[in-house]
Structure formats: C-alpha cells, structure tokens
C-alpha cells in the first residue's frame, strides 16, 4: 500500500481520536439538537402572527411585519447573534432592572433567541406563500357559508396551506440545523463547539471530518423524513393532479433550495 493511502486511511478511520473524544461529539450533538429543536418550534409559533400581520390590510401593520422580515432575512445571522449576545451585554443595568438579565446572561438563551427571531422571519414568508396559494374563491365560498374568520383559517386555509408549506419548512429546518453551528462562536459547546474544542486539544484535522459527517447525516435524514411525510400527506392531491415536483424524463430532479442559509 503506498504511503499516501495509509495517510488517508489514518485520517478517515482514526479510532484513537474517536475513542477518546467521541463522547464529546455526542454531547455536542445533544446540544445542537436542543438548540435547533427549540428555536425551530418557537420560530414556527412566532411565524404565524408575523405572516398574518404581513398580509394584513392595515398598511402600518403589514409594513411593520415586512420590515421585521426584511431585517432578519437581509442581515447575516452571525451579525444578529453578535448583536444580541455582545450588544445585549451593554444593556445589563436595564435588563437587571426589569429582571431579564438571567436570560441574556446565558449564551444558550441568546442563541435560541436570535435563531428563533431569524427563522421566524423565513418561516413567516413560507407560511404567507402557502396561505396565498389557497385559491381566494374558497375563502369567499366559506365566508358565504357564514363561517367565522377563525373557522375559515382552521378548516379551509390551514390544512391546504400546511401541505404546501411542508417541503419549504423542511428546508428551513435544515437551514437552522446548519446555521446552529454559529452557536460555537459565542462559547456554546454544540457539535461545532465540541469539535473546535477537540481540535484545539489534538490539532487533529480528522475531527472536522467526523463533525461534517454527523451534520450531513442529520440534514440528509431530515430531508428524507420531510419528503416521506409530504408524500404521505399529499396522496389525495397527487392522485391525478399535477405534481409539485418538476419531473423531467427518466430522472426526477430536486428543485428548490434545500437547507440554504446564511
């Protein structure tokens, strides 16, 4: 076996490193999962009012929501995170007075806050698009039947909108997973943070490979699960109706931007 291939092999399969520091990657993964899970769910909750406000007929309300979305989609997440984490420190006297300093003191909460605000802006746009994809006539018909606004949303708009939104929301989840690596920059020991820690100790580049593979497994799994869910939920729509994925002869191409951010 030539020398270089042994080098490569040692780089790819580094049992010593894994045995000693593998647990660190696992605890990091746990932290990543917690941050991503919390921020994505909270972001989803926040996205609804933002999306509805964005579609409001009141100019001031829709402008406000639009500015929120523009600011959080138009600036790098890292900048937002720095602003909340380091900028928040400047408000310590004020935050202490109103009793929320414990929140801003903790890097974990700062990360969750900035990721939530960020993903809410993206999810709001997804939801808006999905809601607007429901034909207006249906809403008018429902109104003619005397249904209340809430009932129309719940029984007519939401079920259809969510179906359209599943795939982009899945992509957004993938983006949040990837973006969560930034947490390491503000001292959080997530998967990326633990990787940096191990690298600082060992100067062994293999650890970055393992880190990449774990992220890859995470995002690929998410993509596949979301695809399966969408397939299952859209059975009734797909039967006979044109598919929403672009189908080229022989091969099907994935269309759109899965998991892209920042």
């Amino acid at each position, binding site marked *: 076996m030539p020398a270089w291939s042994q080098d490569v092999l040692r780089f790819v399969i580094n049992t010593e490193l894994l045995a000693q520091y593998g647990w660190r990657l696992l605890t990091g993964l746990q932290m990543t999962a917690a941050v991503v899970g919390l921020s994505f769910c909270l972001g989803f909750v926040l996205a609804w009012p933002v999306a509805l406000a964005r579609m409001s007929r009141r100019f001031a309300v829709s402008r406000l929501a639009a500015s929120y979305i*523009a*600011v959080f*989609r*138009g*600036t*790098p*997440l*890292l*900048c*937002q995170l*720095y*602003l909340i984490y*380091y*900028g928040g*420190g*400047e*408000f310590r006297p004020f935050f202490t007075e109103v009793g929320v300093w414990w929140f801003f003191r903790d890097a974990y909460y700062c990360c969750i806050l900035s990721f939530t605000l960020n993903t809410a802006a993206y999810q709001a746009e997804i939801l808006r698009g999905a809601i607007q994809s429901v034909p207006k006539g249906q809403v008018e018909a429902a109104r003619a039947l005397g249904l209340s606004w809430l009932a129309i949303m719940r029984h007519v708009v939401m079920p259809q909108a969510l179906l359209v939104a599943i795939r982009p929301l899945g992509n957004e989840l*993938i983006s949040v*997973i*990837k*973006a*969560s*690596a*930034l947490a390491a*920059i503000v001292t959080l020991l997530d998967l*990326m943070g633990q990787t940096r820690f191990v690298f600082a100790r060992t100067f062994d*580049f293999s650890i*970055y490979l393992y*880190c*990449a593979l774990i*992220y*890859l497994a995470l*995002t*690929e799994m998410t993509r596949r699960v979301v695809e399966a869910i969408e397939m299952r939920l859209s059975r009734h729509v797909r039967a006979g109706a044109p598919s929403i994925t*672009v189908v*080229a*002869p022989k091969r099907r*191409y*994935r*269309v*759109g*931007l*899965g*998991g*892209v*951010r*920042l």
Partner: protein
Amino acid sequence: MSWYALLFGPDGWIGLLLKGAVVTVALSVTTAPFGFGAGLALALMKMSRNRLLRAACDVYTTFFRGIPDLLALFIIYFGLQALLDRTSKLLGLEGHLELSAFSAGVIALSVVVAAYSSEVWIASLAAVPAGQREAAQSLGLDRAQVFRLVILPQLGRVALPGLGNIWMILQKDTALISTLAVTDLLRAASEASRATTRPLVFYTAAGALYLCFTLVSGVVQGALERRANRGYA
C-alpha cells in the same frame, strides 16, 4: 462616548467599517461568476450519461449542501492550501503556490455557491421544453450549437430568481469568512467593538450596511427579472 463619536469622531471607526464593507462587496462580486459558473458545470455533469461522474457530482452537492457553511468554509480554507502544496510538490515546483486570504475566501465561497446553484441550473435546464432541442437538431444544428444558441439564452431568465436567492445567501455567507482571517464588514465591526468595548453601535451599523446591500440587490434583481421577462409578459 456617544455613538456619533465612536463612529465619526477623531478616533472613529467608520473608516474601518467602510473598508470592511468594500471587502464584503468585493468578496461576493468576485465569487458570484466563479460560483455560478461552476454550478452550471456541475449541473451539466449531473446530466451526463456517465454514471460515475453523475454520482461524484451528487456526492459533492449533497456534502456541501448538507454541512454548515461555516464548517465547509473552514475545511476548504485550510484544506485547499494543503492540496496546493501537495500538488506543487508533485509537479516538482520550487517553493510553494500561495493564496491570499481573500482569494482563498473566494474559492471557499465558490465551492459552496457552486453546490447551491447547481440545483437552480438543473431546474432551469429542465424548464426548457425538449421539443425546442429536437426542433433545433432537426434544423441541422450540432449539439454544442443547440446548447449555445437555443438553450443557454433561455437559461438566464428561468434561473434568475433562484440565482438571486443564492446571491443573497452569498452576501450573508461572506460574514462567515470573518471568522477566518479576512477583515470584512463583520470582522471590522467585531474589532471595533472589542477595542472600544461598545459592541451595540458597531454591530448595528454593520447590520444596517448589510441591509443596504440586500435591499439594493433586491432592487437590481427585480429590474433584471423585468428585463429578462420583457418578451413573456
């Protein structure tokens, strides 16, 4: 010190911030043609008959779309120089080829942007009706001509919204380079806030400048799309 003095005073940091802003714009403007071009090449290779090539390209895109951009940039930034050194040693060159931090950043960003944009190109290639190609071929055009004269001119129009999206991502991705070595806008802001221990003003200023870029880009993209769609209204 007031915000005004911190930015515009005698020892104000606005100059460094603006210098960083220029670097940020230069990074994205330089990366875009390479990244988009490589993305198109990738898209075409993904459609080739060679199964091995297709698989290799799929692995490439899956990998770079599946891992955090921060990690991808880090791996390329350090891996690339090692690769260059190995190659130049293999070719028996004296000394070493060296990459400036800026060009290493451009390459790292291009690799990531290529992976993202290949999906957009594929979608727009698929959007050109097959009948057009058949018609062109029956007119006696060879394959290269079909591509250059019939398909390529239409690609831009279809790909524009998707590429615009990636351009926005790219602009924000440049901020990640700040964690490596290039003094871009975000790093300038971070240096200013460390030196003065007043982060709020500088990160706000940086955010405002980023917002300007994306807003301007949005306007330009809208204009380009309108222009490209003239014949389709």
